[in-house]
């Protein structure tokens, strides 16, 4: 029997209405305007693995993260959690508690007016997983210990902790509902590198110990490489390349993936000059026609400028590129 993926997205799109207020629109005879934050995205996260989505700001990766836990509803397409429609799964508290989220900003993700013990206990109380203050206190202490803090830290307020410690609290809260699936939205990008290493190590230890499934969102390819089993590269709301992380890092196919890999400064490359690719990410409100990457792509031809590339399968990797399909790479 094939295990169903923990999370599966099938042709998911999410558009945001960014029109101006109707009065101004009516006066200036403007049409409504939509931002296609996520455009026809499909992926699956098998149990116990990590799928990372990587891309630059505005590529839609954080929107995918929020769609995956039901903070947004998709405009079209299906998201399935444990084989069930996500909205239905979230209506059932036994399934809802199996998903949780870790956020980017350790200074905004903890309510400054709450004690740490109440922050960590909130999911336990919300799902009535334990009853009685003593049992909850014991469990909170256990969770804090698990993420490398002391049970006594529960008495303090978030401002008494450093960024890395706050991220540990955030992880403890996410774990307190005993989830299977965690969406991690840039969990280390606000942290210093040595602290980032602590958090990444912790997350991998926890994954191994608790058999967690991660959807990991990041803009940092080196972090992604360290964490992922599978990798999706996003550009302007679309996944342009999706496949096993090692394959993509060893043999990037899409020109954008190559650009990203080329653009990352790396300490292994002391003094190596890079040849940066020019251009900037276009506005997702008015994306270019055809392949959204064509204005910056060194391989673009007429077909790329007019026709949106479909996903093709190349040795285990899904890629959306005419040049790859035509063998021009």
């Amino acid at each position, binding site marked *: 029997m094939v295990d169903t993926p923990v999370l599966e997205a099938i042709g998911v799109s999410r558009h945001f209405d960014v029109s101006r207020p109707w009065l101004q629109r009516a006066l200036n005879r403007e049409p409504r305007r939509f931002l296609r934050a996520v455009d026809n995205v499909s992926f699956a996260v098998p149990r116990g693995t990590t799928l990372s989505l990587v891309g630059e700001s505005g590529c839609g990766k954080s929107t995918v993260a*929020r769609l995956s*836990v*039901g*903070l947004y509803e998709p405009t079209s397409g299906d998201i399935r959690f444990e084989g069930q429609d996500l909205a239905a799964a*979230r209506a059932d*508290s036994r399934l*809802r*508690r199996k*998903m*949780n*989220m870790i*956020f*980017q*900003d350790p200074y*905004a*993700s*903890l*309510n*400054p*007016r709450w004690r740490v013990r109440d922050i960590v206990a*909130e*999911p336990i109380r*919300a*799902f009535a997983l334990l009853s009685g203050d003593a049992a909850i206190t014991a469990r909170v202490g256990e969770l804090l210990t698990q993420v490398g803090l002391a049970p006594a830290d529960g008495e303090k307020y978030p401002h008494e902790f450093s960024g890395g410690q706050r991220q540990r609290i*955030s992880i403890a*809260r996410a774990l307190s*509902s005993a989830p299977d699936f965690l969406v991690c939205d840039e969990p280390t990008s606000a942290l210093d590198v040595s602290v980032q290493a602590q958090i990444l190590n912790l997350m991998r230890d926890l994954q191994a110990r608790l058999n967690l499934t991660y959807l990991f969102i990041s803009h940092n390819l080196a972090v992604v490489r360290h964490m992922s089993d599978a990798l999706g590269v996003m550009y302007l709301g679309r996944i342009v390349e999706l496949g096993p992380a090692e394959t993509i890092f060893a043999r990037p196919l899409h020109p954008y993936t190559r650009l990203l890999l080329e653009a990352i400064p790396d300490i292994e490359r002391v003094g190596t000059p890079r040849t940066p690719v020019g251009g900037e990410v276009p506005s997702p409100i008015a994306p270019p026609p055809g392949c959204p990457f064509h204005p910056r792509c060194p391989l673009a031809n007429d077909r790329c400028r007019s026709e949106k590339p479909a996903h093709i399968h190349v040795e285990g990797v899904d890629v959306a590129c005419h040049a790859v399909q035509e063998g021009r790479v």
Partner: protein
Amino acid sequence: MLARFFDSDFFYSFRRNPVAMVSAAVVFMIIVSAVFSPWLAPHNPFDLASLNLLDSFKPPFFQADGELSYPLGTDDQGRDVLSAIMYGTRISLTVGVLAIAFAMVVGIGLGLLAGYAGGAVDALLMRIVDVQLSFPAILIALLVDGIARAALPREFHDRIQLWVLVVAIGIAQWPQFARTVRGSTMVERGREYVMAARVIGIPSVRIMLSHILPNVLGPVLVIATLNLGLAVLSEATLSFLGVGLPPTQPSLGTLIRIGNDFLFSGEWWVTIFPGLTLAVMVLSINLLGDWLRDALNPRLR
């Protein structure tokens, strides 16, 4: 807990600001003398038995005919002005505090709702706020009072006049609270801690009350303080205009109105002392509010 408060930056900024300390002392003194006026006041201005018309229009003690037993003089009925001020302040403060409490409850509730729900609910509530803010607060209070007078039987109306004032002033002031709370709520709603609560399915009302509310109270506290001064003034204005509290229940405004009749016949103290008390009280409350605003503003720290 107390030790932590005295060690806090908040208390430190208070200790470093002489204006705030003096204002706080003045406000504290006024509140104490108002709250405990039945025990602290030298006379009971409402005890008709103790009033003696022979004592009417005595000047304050520092003038030639003054007596120390009526330190700030007496009015046309022989009432001690100081005692009347203490009792009057009590009534003025009661109306002010209750009005602010009413405005706060309505304003916070609707502000939270508008900021959290957004969309049409927000648009509707904020248009109401806009419309109301385009009328002077005192006009709205007069309107509410007028409606109450027309709708309620006279006798009943007199008995509940204090509550009518509270509602009238409160209705005139809720939009400020609503607007501020809505703005802060919109900021907080986008914060990740609110998203964390939404992910685990905490109901919206509980998110508003237990997560967002404690984080938007700072600015509310500042507005409440600044508006308390305003509410006391509104009450005084209404009473001065004769639509406020009746002479049987004299507030500072009523005292000023009564005394106003004698201002030009030489008995200035009947109106000047209540007026001064009102001015000093409102000024101190406002200075305290200004300091509070700066102390709670993280950008000025």
